Structures are given as structure tokens and as C-alpha cells.
């Protein structure tokens, strides 16, 4: 089975802190994604990566950056955490191809105080 693992289930950080959310997948997927999930807004794409060291902005990239130094690992970075970044963060991965579903991690619930 595909496994996408996020390093933390719950995080509490202070405003202004630099926050790292880590995601690892074990299926050699080319594509990796970071979404945030908020009530009533569904899943919104922050960033995605289609290869090592490649990244592209999604719909809401402001306040975030990403890093993909290895194929299996995709990190989301909050440069200076703010309270409006309190949310559930979901990492996903997929094969590159015509018909491919995304596989999700269990999510990281981040609270910024």
C-alpha cells in the first residue's frame, strides 16, 4: 500500500515562528502536493512539485514556501507563522500520468497562537 507520512499530527506554534511541516512518501511518486483544509472551504492547493527541486505555486502560496531536495520528501515552510495559518495541512502524492489519483497523509493540525 502507498504510504504518505506527515511528521506531526498536531503542532502548536507561536506567531512569528518559522514552521516546518514534513511529508514523506514511499511509492516513488513524481508528484507531491500540499493542501490546507478549512471548514467550508474544502482543500486548497498551496504548492506542488512534479520533480526533485521543481515547485510551482498553487492557489494560495502567500506566506508559504516549499522544498523538495529528495524525491520522497516534500517540506512545507511557514516563514513567519501567523494566526490565519491555523489550519489542517494535508500532504499528497501521485504518479505522473494520464489517470492517477492522489494519496494523502493523515494531516497535520497546526495551531498558531
Amino acid at each position, binding site marked *: 500500500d502507498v504510504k*504518505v507520512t506527515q511528521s506531526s499530527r498536531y503542532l502548536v506554534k507561536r506567531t512569528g515562528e518559522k514552521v516546518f511541516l514534513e511529508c514523506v512518501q514511499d511509492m516513488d511518486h513524481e*508528484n507531491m*502536493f500540499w*493542501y490546507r483544509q478549512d471548514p*467550508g*472551504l*474544502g*482543500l*486548497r*492547493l498551496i504548492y*506542488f512539485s*512534479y520533480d526533485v527541486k521543481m515547485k510551482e505555486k*498553487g492557489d494560495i502560496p502567500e506566506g508559504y514556501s516549499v522544498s523538495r531536495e529528495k524525491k520522497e520528501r516534500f517540506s512545507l515552510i511557514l516563514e513567519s507563522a501567523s494566526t490565519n495559518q491555523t489550519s489542517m495541512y*494535508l500532504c*499528497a502524492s*501521485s504518479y*505522473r*500520468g*494520464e*489517470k*492517477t*489519483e*492522489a*494519496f*494523502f*497523509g*493523515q*494531516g497535520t493540525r497546526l495551531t498558531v497562537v
Partner: protein
Amino acid sequence: GESVGLHLPTLSVQEGDNSIINCAYSNSASDYFIWYKQESGKGPQFIIDIRSNMDKRQGQRVTVLLNKTVKHLSLQIAATQPGDSAVYFCAERRGSYIPTFGRGTSLIVHP
């Protein structure tokens, strides 16, 4: 911009009934659609998919219908069970690999 949305935020059904969850999409160029199920405390999980050259696809107790004329997608769950209680998302493929998600519908199954 293009969007994927759901008609109803919450659907309540009795155990044993059939459930129908609807989704509207606006990107006429989308060629691949997926339904996901998200249980409490978990990430979304793949249920079933359909390509735009099909209008119906069946899985185990689930059927997805695609109406390209009105840009509408639905998920039918037969004989709904308490374990089906979850939030259901439809997603369309944008470009070659990026899934865009709707807001989700919460399905509540009453015993």
C-alpha cells in the same frame, strides 16, 4: 477562475437507504474526475474515478455518474451503512496531474 463545488454541504440518510452526493464543475476541459472519502481525523481516501469519455462507472456499492452536458458529477452509495459517514469530495484534474477539490459534503448515516 474554474471551480469545483458541491450542491449540499450536509446529507442525512437512514441506514440501508441509497445516498446521492452531487458535484458541479465548471472546467469543461477537465478530463478526469475522482471521488474521495474523508473520515474524521484522517486524510482523504480514493473511492472511485471516471474519465470524461465515460458517463457511468460502478464500483463496490458505489456508482459515479458524469453528465458533461450540464457539467455535473454524482456519487451514488447503495445500502448506506454507518461506516459510510464521512465527508465526500469530488475532484477534477487540472492540467496533467493537479487535482482541484470541491468544498465537500458531509454524509451522516442514522441507524
